[in-house]
């Protein structure tokens, strides 16, 4: 971290007429060096951040004995692990299950949260502030408190063992996304809505035809965030899924860890390859929505 120049001697330059002159002569060169040092440090750190993924990908092309050899390029590259893992586990089925759950979870939460957020953003009514505070308060509640009763609800409905509990709760909106979307809706100008109202548009049309299109980035962001959360979730699949044919891919990966990993047969190449298959769709998702992810997270913090 010494890359950033500690107390550059420019501080010694006397403020006043001499300052501009001193800056002109000495600063550009010093600045350039500092910038180069910062970029070098960041490049080194980038290697640290990206290398584990490269390592994982590389290991998935190594035969069993070489998984731990830590070579960048496999000594004897092979596709065999992908064939084996496909035979050992119903990966295609798991991927389809995950895709279905992810699409349903992200789709429902986006729609429901947008509706609720619009209700809080556009209309004014007595008690709105208090009700919205309640929405925010639910974010503070640890998931562990509601975990068991929620399980009992799905159990009573006979839906444990199906994928319904993994997404149906999203039909009712989620506090974090309601909060996020409301921020965006509040930023909209009111004129288009007043104009539409005069033209006789009803509330639903104003939401669907004006508010949603104007807030498309936030809608996409909500979908992407929830898609990631849903795809990578392990806790709920552990709680609700019993038969291996219903597993999502993280739940399946956990089963493979148990079978081939530390407690099992030590066939790490299978675990590694399944990890790659679990991770790659998320990397693809990131590159599809890169801009949204970065901007969305920036907003999250500043509104906190």
């Amino acid at each position: 971290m010494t890359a950033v120049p500690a107390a550059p001697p420019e501080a010694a330059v006397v403020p006043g007429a001499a300052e501009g002159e001193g800056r002109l002569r000495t600063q550009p060169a010093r600045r350039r060096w500092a910038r180069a040092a910062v970029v070098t440090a960041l490049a080194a750190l980038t290697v640290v951040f990206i290398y584990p993924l490269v390592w994982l990908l590389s290991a998935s092309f190594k035969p069993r004995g070489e998984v731990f050899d830590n070579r960048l390029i496999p000594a004897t590259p092979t596709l065999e692990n992908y064939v084996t893992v496909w035979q050992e586990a119903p990966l295609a089925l798991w991927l389809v299950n995950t895709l279905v759950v992810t699409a349903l979870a992200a789709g429902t939460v986006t729609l429901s949260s947008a509706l609720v957020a619009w209700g809080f953003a556009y209309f004014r009514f007595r008690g709105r502030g208090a009700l919205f505070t309640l929405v925010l308060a639910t974010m503070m509640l640890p998931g562990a408190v509601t975990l068991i009763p929620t399980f009992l609800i799905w159990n009573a409905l006979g839906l444990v063992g199906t994928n319904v509990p993994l997404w149906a709760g999203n039909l009712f909106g989620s506090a974090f996304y309601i909060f996020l979307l409301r921020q965006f809706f509040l930023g909209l100008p009111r004129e288009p809505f007043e104009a539409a109202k005069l033209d006789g548009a009803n509330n639903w049309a104003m939401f669907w035809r004006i508010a949603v299109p104007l807030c498309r980035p936030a809608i996409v962001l909500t979908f992407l965030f929830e898609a990631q959360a849903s795809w990578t979730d392990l806790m709920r699949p552990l709680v609700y899924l019993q038969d291996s044919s219903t597993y999502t891919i993280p739940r399946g990966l956990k089963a493979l860890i148990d079978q081939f990993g530390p407690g099992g047969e030590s066939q790490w190449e299978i675990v590694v390859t399944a990890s790659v298959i679990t991770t790659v769709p998320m990397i693809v998702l990131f590159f599809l929505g890169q801009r949204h992810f970065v901007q969305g997270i920036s907003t999250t913090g500043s509104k906190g």
Partner: protein
Amino acid sequence: MTSAAAAPAAAPAPPSRRPGASVSARRERNAALRFISPWIVGFLVFTAWPILYSAYLSLTDYDVLTDPTFVGTDNYERMATDPKVRLALWNTLQYTIIQVPLYVVVALALALLLNQAGRSAGFFRTAFFIPKMTPPVAVGVLLLLLFNGQYGLVNEVLGVFGIDGPSWTTDAAWIKPGLALISLWSVGSSVIILLAALRDVPTELYDAARVDGAGWWRRTRTVTLPMISGALFFVTVVNTIAAFQMFTEAYSAYFGAGNSTYSNDAALFYVIYLFREGFEQLHMGYASALAWLLFVVIMLVTAVQLLVSRRLVYYEGEQR
């Protein structure tokens, strides 16, 4: 109409006290409630009722198969003497104490560095964020592989510097540091939040500090840190709550699901113990009591952080 005061600045004047006003106000409220109704239903069914029912269950013995039997405060008394509860709490506390400061300091350092990087910052910001996309189960796999004491890449790199790395994944003393270190891999989202805050700091403040002869470190300490203290606080609180609920990475790496029954006491975090009690042992009453203790602990810790933040966090426009 008191709530109109809280309406967005762009809002036109609140409905006046003309005779039709109450009708239109009621109509507006009903329209709003129609939009909000999914959340209201969800809140009642999936939050309010579960909270009440969980409180009731915590006073019962319940294994799902037979009806709950009321046992009073037995579960809470048992918790007080259960050595596993003490172990799980202590593990979780240790992990939080190691992980949170490390994570926040690293996030801040990376954000400060990115803030000096000029146009290339966007590229590096993306690079730092990508690991965050990795599913936590796969992070658990990477932990077992990269931090393997004998063959792992981490110890191989340490070896280059002449350091004999520990058995991160088997030595009880190193399990939590190992988990804390790999959590740094997912620091990217917090870096983005802090970087956004850094970019909001008015440059006039830096110019003023420069004129006063403040060097980089003094500018950081007296301008940057106070100005981004809100974002720093946010990252700290969110991360503390997450650390207290550590589950997936540790469970994936150190606990067997289904028929395999490996486990590791040093990685028995509180939520893992709760999960195993509730869903593997079917001690649903006891697990509900455990959940309430976690709730109280998290609330206390957050309250303490809020109190401390009153003295340390600066919000713009605030009178001191």
